[in-house]
């Protein structure tokens, strides 16, 4: 811990459209004519990405790319905004899905709709819908998907066997899930873990529950909240019943110990994505199943996006991104990183069987992309505010500080206000 102003780690700057706007909007690419691609990949992801970029550069001397580490994806948005202010933005920046509404409408950000939809060879519609939707705001496309994840049920087989509970199946219901979690709990162990820091990490799991119960976040016209419904109530009640009544849920305060607890046999089930599979210790035998269901077995995707800036971004960087997302090249990337396929036709490639063999746990996630990722978060500027409100509501129910009905009613009011406010 340190003194002084400059030490805010991961703090976020931001401020000042005036500043950003007064700053010239030029997109200077480096003096060497290479276009810059900012990314947050580390370790084997970085190595695989570097390898592909090097290959592209040897065959495309006029459209060379330079990969630059962005200091971590948690800081990607603020670093990008700052680069607008300093007049030296990259041509491409990796962004969390939720960040895109903070970048659209700026002169640097490029509308790529015609270049992508109009390019039959690229096959925009072949990309999984979750990724496409994350790159699209108000019908316009501002980037290409970089990564598409989703949630599945990951469970510790040994704990199930010891408790003599049948492993989760495709037709598991909420009741099956709840009763298994209850039986797996006790003696310093929890059936399930829920990230309860009130951020989007808390909210997206709730959205999956809401959709499973047949509900929706917003009304069809997007102008009113719709989650204060029977489905919303069922979802909140399940959380209350499990966390407060059964005490079968480990509430992770945000320090992400849930995975370490899973490794130590203290948590039996997680709702998580493929990124966590690589961090499960070898001595833990785990299974992956689709999420339990109520009306549906809906899950939620967490897509990230490559957002494109400036004229050079359109002309020089986009061809690289298109190449990167072609089925063969992306499968090559997936083989080395364990990333899920990003387009439907990737699954049909002959090399895909090898991917499945190398990453057996990912099959359920890939199937989910086609079957259970049926809805997505609305890509609207008010979403971050809505997420904050819902995060607090879910937290209050999990902590037993509010009844489901009251939490829903109050958050509906705040969401309606946020939607009406702008």
């Amino acid at each position, binding site marked *: 811990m*340190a*003194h*002084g*102003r*400059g*030490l*805010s*780690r*991961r*703090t*976020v*700057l*931001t*401020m*000042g459209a005036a*500043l*950003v706007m*007064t*700053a010239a909007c030029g997109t200077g690419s480096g003096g060497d004519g290479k276009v810059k691609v900012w990314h*947050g*990949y*580390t*370790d084997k*992801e*970085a190595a695989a990405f570097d390898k592909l970029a090097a290959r592209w550069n040897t065959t495309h001397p006029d459209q060379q790319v330079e990969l*630059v*580490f962005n*200091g*971590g*994806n*948690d*800081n990607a948005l*603020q*670093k990008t*905004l*700052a*680069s607008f*202010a*300093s*007049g*030296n933005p990259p041509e491409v920046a990796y962004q969390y899905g939720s960040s895109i509404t903070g970048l659209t409408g700026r002169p640097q950000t490029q509308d790529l709709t015609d270049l992508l939809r109009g390019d039959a060879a690229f096959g925009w519609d072949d990309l999984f819908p979750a990724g496409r939707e994350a790159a699209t705001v108000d019908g316009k496309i501002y980037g290409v998907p970089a990564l598409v994840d989703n949630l599945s049920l990951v469970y510790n087989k040994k704990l199930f066997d010891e408790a003599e509970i049948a492993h989760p199946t495709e037709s598991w219901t909420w009741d099956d899930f709840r009763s298994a979690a209850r039986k797996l709990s006790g003696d310093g162990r929890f059936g399930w873990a829920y990230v309860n820091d009130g951020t989007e990490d808390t909210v997206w799991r709730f959205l999956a529950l809401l959709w499973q119960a047949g509900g929706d976040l917003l009304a069809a016209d997007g102008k009113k909240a719709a989650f204060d419904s029977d489905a919303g109530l069922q979802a909140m009640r399940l959380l209350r019943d499990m966390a407060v009544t059964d005490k079968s849920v480990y509430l992770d305060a945000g320090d992400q*110990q849930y*995975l*370490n*607890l899973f*490794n*130590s046999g*203290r948590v039996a089930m997680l709702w998580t*994505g493929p*990124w*966590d599979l*690589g*961090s499960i*210790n*070898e*001595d833990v035998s785990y299974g992956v199943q689709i999420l339990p269901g109520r009306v549906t077995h809906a899950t939620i995707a967490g897509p990230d996006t490559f957002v494109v800036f400036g004229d050079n971004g359109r002309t020089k960087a986009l061809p690289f991104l298109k190449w990167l997302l072609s089925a063969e090249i992306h499968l090559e990337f997936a083989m080395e990183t364990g990333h899920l396929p990003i387009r439907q036709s990737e699954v049909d490639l002959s090399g895909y069987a090898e991917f499945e063999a190398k990453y057996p746990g990912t099959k359920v996630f890939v199937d989910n992309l086609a079957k259970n990722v049926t809805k997505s978060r609305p890509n609207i500027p008010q979403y971050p505010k809505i997420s904050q409100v819902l995060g607090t509501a879910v937290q209050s129910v999990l902590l037993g500080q509010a009844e489901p009905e009251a939490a829903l009613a109050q958050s509906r009011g705040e969401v309606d206000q946020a939607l009406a406010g702008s």
Partner: protein
Amino acid sequence: MRRPSALHLVLLPLSVVMVTPLVWMLLVSVSTQAESRRFPPGLPSGIEWENYLAAMRDAPLGSWLVNSFVVSVVCVAGNLVLCSLAGYAFARIRFLGGRVAFFLMLATLMVPFQIVMLPLLIMMRSLGLVDTLGALIAPNLATAFGVFLMRQFFTTLPRELEEAARIDGASRLRTLLQVLLPLMRPTLATLAVLTFLQTWNDFLWPLIVVQSPDAMTVQLGLQSFQGAHTTNWPKLMAGTVLSQLPVLLVFFFAQRFFVRSVAAAGIK
């Protein structure tokens, strides 16, 4: 003063509490990845030196350390000189606008950095400093923190010292350099250490003002050990330990300056 044993009873447990995170970092830095992924944690079964090798092999740790070092040392030098001068003036000279200037200087610390960061960045751009070490040095060359610290400590020195020297015909600058500053050695050492720490550990400002790997500092570079979804904790902690060693060394060697020299203490 002559009953050390009683003090140890307080200081020893206190020290244990204070060094816990360092011990923890050291333990994680020699654990295997699997060991680092357990909770509650246990002691590592062996010592994985490989983490340190990986941290040095996988990243240009050396050039990051050099950048951090250059920035920190230049800022320490700047602060020692400029803050001594200004601190002395604010403490001992009544001059027109002095108090207003002092307060305005403090005022620069009162608006959260998150807000002033972008204006500062735009200024750096007009100075042509973006993406250079200069951008890390310029705003920290003289700090309100340093001026304030020095001013406060100058007020503790007896006025008679200075007046005696002035009567002997010494100029203000000479009095400051030859009479007052030697007495301030502990304070100057404190300022040096704290300035070094601040610039060494700074993260947010380098993050936004530096883009190319050539100008990366070690705190920024260490981020590349921290993945978006999964982190190799042992490697990250090994890198962190390596990056903090220089700071601990600076602390260690500054210790002797913290203690006022006997000769200086003799002056009343």
